[in-house]
């Protein structure tokens, strides 16, 4: 398949891995931000191809994982109302809130529907004028334009039965939060290619300058990741800190400007809680006042409440790259994808779930 096979080519990948080994003289700690990248690393065993001492730690870029428990509880609460159709991306359905998940709500009679695109939710609202349709709008900058488009479209059509439960997170403030943390170990970042396809590279310049940390925008296939790792190690070995773009076939410096415009028109930057990490200032998006009628929090008067994560979950350390999932005492024992105790185990893109899915034999044997 074009644009895939060449990026999964074993020969090219091995060649890159050899180059990485050849240029690496010291131990380095790199972080890939996106859960999709973590997934690829585990699936193809890329870390096994790297020289000893070159450590990859896994970042917080799994949108499903970092969606706060409170948002999931609200979604379940809404879904259980007889007048509501709750529409969600597929992998949110199994994510546990504090006492249930959307699949269980569905079994209790809730009308929960899976969509591939938020515009499907608008379509459902249009054809069910007597029901309230709520879209669970989560994600990073990648899904924000499409989610914004849904609100924009609903407003233009004057729909009064459509709203969104928004939980949007932004990558650059999360990197900043990691870098200012006293316990930070990360020396170079692979920035998320899909986020940068939308946002461009520019907003990472400040991070590179402020923290003198190399950042390479990377893709999602094995060859992409190995190339990004090579670019980072070369910079680190040379004592450089630059912003580079490995994922040139998708990411331009400016990004997708019309997509950014619709995001800005519909959303504004706000403080945001991340599941497993906590609150990060100005790290999320909320609907602007002009779109307040489409905010499910207002439409349904959901109120605010706080839910605590189980104390034994070490997800905060995993999501900051301080610990590997397998260092958690309950990994694979009391915490599994079926019964996750915390954020990184809930979605297949979460770091703990990726280790569990692809690597637990290494732990067992």
């Amino acid at each position: 398949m074009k644009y895939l096979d060449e990026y999964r080519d074993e020969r090219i990948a091995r060649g890159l891995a050899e180059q990485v080994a050849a240029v690496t003289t010291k131990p380095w700690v790199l972080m890939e931000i996106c859960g999709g990248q973590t997934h690829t690393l585990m699936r193809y065993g890329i870390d096994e191809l790297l020289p000893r001492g070159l450590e990859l730690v896994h970042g917080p870029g799994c949108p499903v994982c970092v969606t706060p428990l409170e948002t999931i509880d609200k979604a379940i609460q809404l879904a259980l109302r007889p007048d509501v159709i709750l529409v969600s991306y597929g992998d949110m359905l199994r994510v546990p809130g504090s006492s249930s998940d959307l699949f269980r709500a569905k079994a209790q009679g809730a009308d929960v529907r899976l969509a591939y695109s938020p515009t499907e939710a608008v379509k459902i609202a249009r054809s069910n004028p007597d029901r309230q349709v709520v879209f669970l709008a989560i994600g990073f900058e990648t899904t924000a334009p499409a989610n914004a488009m849904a609100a924009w479209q609903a407003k233009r059509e004057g729909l009064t039965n459509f709203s969104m439960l928004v939980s949007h997170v932004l990558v650059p403030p999360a990197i900043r939060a990691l870098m200012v943390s006293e316990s930070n170990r990360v020396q170079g970042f692979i920035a998320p290619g899909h986020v940068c396809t939308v946002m461009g590279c520019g907003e990472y310049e400040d991070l590179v300058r402020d923290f003198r940390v190399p950042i390479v925008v990377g893709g999602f296939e094995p060859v992409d990741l190995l190339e990004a790792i090579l670019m980072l190690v070369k910079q680190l070995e040379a004592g450089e800190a630059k912003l580079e773009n490995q994922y040139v076939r998708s990411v331009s410096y400016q990004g997708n400007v019309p997509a950014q415009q619709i995001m800005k028109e519909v959303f504004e930057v706000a403080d945001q809680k991340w599941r497993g990490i906590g609150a990060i200032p100005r790290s999320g998006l909320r609907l602007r006042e002009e779109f307040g009628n489409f905010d499910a929090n207002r439409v349904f008067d959901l109120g605010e409440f706080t839910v605590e994560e189980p104390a034994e979950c070490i997800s905060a350390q995993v999501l900051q790259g301080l610990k590997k999932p397998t260092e958690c005492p309950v990994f694979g024992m009391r915490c599994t994808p079926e019964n996750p105790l915390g954020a990184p185990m809930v979605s297949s893109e979460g770091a703990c779930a990726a280790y569990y899915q692809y690597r637990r034999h290494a732990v067992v044997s």
Partner: protein
Amino acid sequence: MSSATKTIAELSCPAPLPAKDKVLLGHGSGGKLSAELIRDVFLPVLNNPMLARLDDQAIVNINGQRLAITTDSFVVKPLFFPGGDIGSLAVHGTVNDLAMGGATPLYLSAAFIIEEGFPMEQLRRVVDSMHRAATEAGVQVVTGDTKVVERGKGDGLFINTTGIGIAPDGLELSANRARPGDKVLLSGSIGEHGIAILAQREGLEFETTIQSDSAALHTLVAGMLEATHEIRCMRDPTRGGVSSTLNEIAQQSQVGIELEERRILVREQVRGACEMLGLDPLYVANEGKLIAIVADGAAEAVLQSMQRHPLGAEARIIGTVKEANPGLVTMRTAFGTTRIVDMLAGDQLPRIC
């Protein structure tokens, strides 16, 4: 009770999820939840040695004659899809479950649960299709049942078929018979049925020309059994795909199964659709493929027999049964690294990005 009034104790831990008081869709997915349902609800109550084998069919001995019995219900949506419909599927599915026990399928029953208002023309098309499929497979529908449920109490049409066939003497096929050194054979490319169905589903607006692989496999099996009786186990990887089937075998035989990624054939269009939807073809359903676990020495003969049959022309040895990692399926990736091929909890869910 609103979440705001919950006590801290109730809120402090999101898992384990509360008592399993409701059946979830995932309980029908063929994954871990299905296995749990069978283990916790059905087996303890209905238990007997034949059921406990948990094979696709039971082999019973009646007056010295070994008979294979199986049953399957079909709830596919849409009812008509490229490469088949619920009628042909109901024949192929049950014929295949018999064939996986090495049996020659003979007779089927067919039970129809029809929703009030269902178009008669569609029902006729389904019955015609069943007839064609049965005739081609050399089986007869010899008894049946019809129930009509009120509008809104069914989903158009459900069909159950039960089949019986004759099982050859001296042949013991079961998922608990895989042994280290055995080879894993797969009869062709994977994922076509699942993707053909998904492509037709409401709300998924992408076009493909992928056809379901729905087919009756018993003549393919007959050829394999002519080659050797050194086959340990056969399964058709339907719901949950190749991964779930192999995980079941690994668990029931307490062996490890190691697959070679590059040996597993996935059509370009299926790969494309899976990439787009964030699915893994190893978990996508097939309706005309089989997996056989064969003793090392007989594997080549079985493979050649399969390749002579049109439904096995692309058959390959895709892996080996190992002593290491009992109960787990692992895969040697194209990069020479190893990963687990896990059994899913429920249905495979499309990823957000």
